[in-house]
């Protein structure tokens, strides 16, 4: 594996710490990604065809 992705992956995880709470940046990113997808899935309308029927 080479390139920027290899550089990004090939080192120990960076951790954020606040009191008792400790989380890796990667895990925080995945949680925020899931929350974003969840929010988008709730608010984005489902596509309809030209007659107004659900696809």
């Amino acid at each position, binding site marked *: 594996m080479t390139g920027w992705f290899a550089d990004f992956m090939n080192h120990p995880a960076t951790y954020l710490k606040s009191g008792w709470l400790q989380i890796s940046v990667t895990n925080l990113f*995945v949680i925020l*990604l*899931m929350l974003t*997808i*969840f929010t*988008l*899935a*709730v608010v*984005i309308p*489902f596509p*309809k065809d030209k007659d107004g*029927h*659900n*696809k």
Partner: protein
Amino acid sequence: MSEMWTAKLRNKWQKNLPIEKLLPDDQPAYVASWIYVFGVLTLSAIVMIIFSGVILAFEGPAWYHTSDTGKFVNSLHFWSVQLFFIFMVIHLWGKFWMAAWRGKRFATWATGAVAFIASIATAFTGYLVQTNFDSQWISFEAKDGFNSVGVGAWFSVTNLGQMLLLHVAFLPIILGAITVVHVLMVRKRGVVPPIDAEPSTLSEVK
């Protein structure tokens, strides 16, 4: 009516889950929402996991650690698991916030919860059988946790043979069976309506 157990089972099946419910071509109007897509996305991911996992099982680590195709299939297996969990967690959130156990759907909810736990066990054993430094690190960190609760003698995370057999045989059978029951329960009771669904939207639409 025949008293044969086969006839009794057939009649019970036909009464509870007729073929029209098992393979529907209509869905209620409220299903037309992206949040209802994540169950089937989770199923799609598990199909990819099983497909790539079968190839990995046949070819073995000497192949998937060295050849380009093997590394690709290994990565396909790994990233399908990442997507599987992302889809499953969003599916879980969606169903939790619409209280999906309503309308006699407790068994659907409960089998989903058990499938979630079985998935964690399957993924964990998967991490342990990667046969790389990552799996070595995870197993030696995890053994202390399992030993501290007294189960290390039966569930030995540093025992590659035990973890491999659990990952490729026992746990997939358990998870597969629970998933099948979960999907059958969804088909039996139907997809749960939103909490504030108007009665007019509960009709079936094409």
